[in-house]
């Protein structure tokens, strides 16, 4: 299910529907699943490459960790409120379990079998009060293959053992067959889908450009220069936050190296972008979201 109009905005108010001022979905799910015994609800972030999926889920994890630290400020408490893993390509259940163990810092030897690893991961996650599990690159999971199905079952087992909210992120997961078959139906019944789209040229885009400009630390840069170039930036990046970040950071590094210490239209033109953005700039058409 794709919801047009849902965009990724940086900062505290990320993931907030533009047309709805309700609470953000991620925070609501974590509170909803806090005391759930089973059948916890999850979230899947799907969208085209460069639309900020990883940025969004890491921002969610950062926000949750800050809130957890405010509630439990004692440094002696062993708390790991957020776990972030990436599904490796051609993943097997053991590889995924080892990814969890590596994030937690558990020493895993070659002779440790998957049962030992899963027991250690689940035990530590329960003891450290893990409440949010972020699984990125979920499109590496192919339910049509045996290993992919076993990895899906492993994730399902983790979600049953660990009292946490699971958030998946991947490229066009609904088209990659993640919701197909019996396992896919089970995922579809428990996970909500949020599609990420490019930023339209509106006030949110200008706010995003202004936020990124405030983060610049260039001596001769005039504030407001990038805000005046918002239409140009939107045309070059197609509204993609990843391309915009790459463009501004690349131009800033170039300005530091050459000593100009400022960003101009000319310096921005000198920075090459990814192929998709370059093609978009050549055609002059606005990049369309994958699933309008």
């Amino acid at each position, binding site marked *: 299910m794709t919801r047009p109009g849902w965009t990724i905005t940086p900062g505290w108010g990320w993931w907030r529907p533009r047309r709805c001022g309700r609470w953000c979905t991620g925070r609501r799910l974590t509170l909803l699943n806090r005391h759930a015994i089973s059948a916890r609800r999850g979230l899947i972030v799907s969208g085209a490459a460069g639309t900020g999926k990883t940025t969004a889920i890491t921002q969610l994890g950062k926000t949750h960790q800050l809130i957890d630290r405010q509630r439990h400020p004692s440094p002696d408490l062993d708390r790991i409120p957020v776990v972030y893993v990436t599904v490796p390509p051609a993943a097997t259940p053991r590889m995924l379990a080892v990814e969890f163990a590596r994030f937690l*810092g558990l*020493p895993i030897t*070659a002779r440790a079998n998957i049962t030992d690893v899963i027991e250690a991961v689940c035990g530590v996650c329960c*003891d450290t009060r893990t409440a949010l599990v972020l699984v990125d690159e979920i499109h590496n999971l192919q339910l049509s293959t045996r290993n992919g199905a076993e990895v899906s079952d492993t994730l399902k087992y983790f979600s049953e053992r660990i009292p946490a909210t699971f958030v998946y992120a991947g490229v066009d997961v609904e088209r990659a067959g993640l919701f197909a078959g019996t396992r896919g139906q089970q995922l579809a019944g428990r996970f909500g889908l949020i599609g990420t789209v490019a930023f339209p040229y509106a006030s949110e885009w200008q706010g995003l450009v202004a936020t990124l400009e405030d983060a610049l630390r260039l001596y001769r840069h005039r504030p407001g220069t990038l805000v005046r170039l918002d239409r140009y930036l939107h045309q070059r990046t197609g509204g993609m936050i990843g391309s915009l970040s790459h463009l501004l950071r690349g131009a800033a590094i170039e300005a530091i190296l050459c000593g100009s210490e400022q960003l101009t239209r000319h310096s921005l033109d000198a920075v090459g972008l990814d192929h998709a953005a370059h093609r978009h700039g050549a055609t002059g058409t606005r990049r369309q979201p994958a699933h309008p």
Partner: protein
Amino acid sequence: MRPRAIPEVLRPLPIRVRPRPAETVASYVVRLARANHLQPSHLHAYLCGPPDWRGAPDLGRLAVLCGRPGSVLQRALTGPTPARQPTPEPLGGPRPPTPARTPKPRHNTELAATAGHHDQPLEASAAPAIPTSQPAPALMASPTAAWTGRMVDRKVTSTGVISFANTNYSVGRAFTGQMVQVTCQDGTVQISRGGEPLRAWSRRHPAAKEASIGPDRSHDRGEVALDQARRLAPLDDLASDPRVVHRLVDPTGSVSFAGRYYLAGHALTGQVVGVRCAGGIVQIIHDGELVRAWQQRHTPQQEQRMHQRPNIQQRTANARPLTSAPQHQPAPAGQP
């Protein structure tokens, strides 16, 4: 099957456990593994490191995984040295058997460097008789033999120190709760336990303070210094002395004797000791050696009734090993 070497950077474990004082390395590794839901054998092999993945845990790896400095671990942990340093044997021959539940003391220079509270232990040139904080060699005269009337008993505190003439001297956390004998001779404070030299320090207290210490001074009220108890009641005729009775040390470390409880020490819990009262001193003997001595708190009538009816004062749980051959005698006329 040996686990393969995994070229990765060591990281602290997610759940960190605080080491307990005088805890063995093996016990700490097991607690650390249990807290992190790991198999202790796997964690032990991981701590040993490549290429063998076996043996004694490496201190550096343990310090990284538990998230604590290595000096803290060396000061707190006992047992097989974490730094893979072989425990040196005392130069005076094999050590006497350590009582049960007594932590094995460490004897390495690192412990001396970290356990000392004020100064370093004496160097070999400073005190030829007791070279360093290593176990004193056999060439050193026995503290008991060289007793000059200033030997006192001290109980090692939880921080591993004893107080002598209002000055703290370190013994080591491994001896926490145990009684040691302290003597000061020629500007050297010698600490021993059961006749075995432990540590030697240069004197830091003023000599005037030392003069006020009596030879029979003890921490606990009613406890008698061991050397004084030996002088007042020699242990020469133990085998033929009919006053010696055998008692099982209860879980509180005490024995019942003539209707009174006398402390033998937690280290002897569950073991059979000999107890006798001679010259107003109750002596507790283990393996032919005097381990504790107390002033008599029972009456002569109680002792007489005890000898007439042995085991009558024993509690049921304690009396089980000793009542295999019941020796109950009928109470004499006029006795309750």
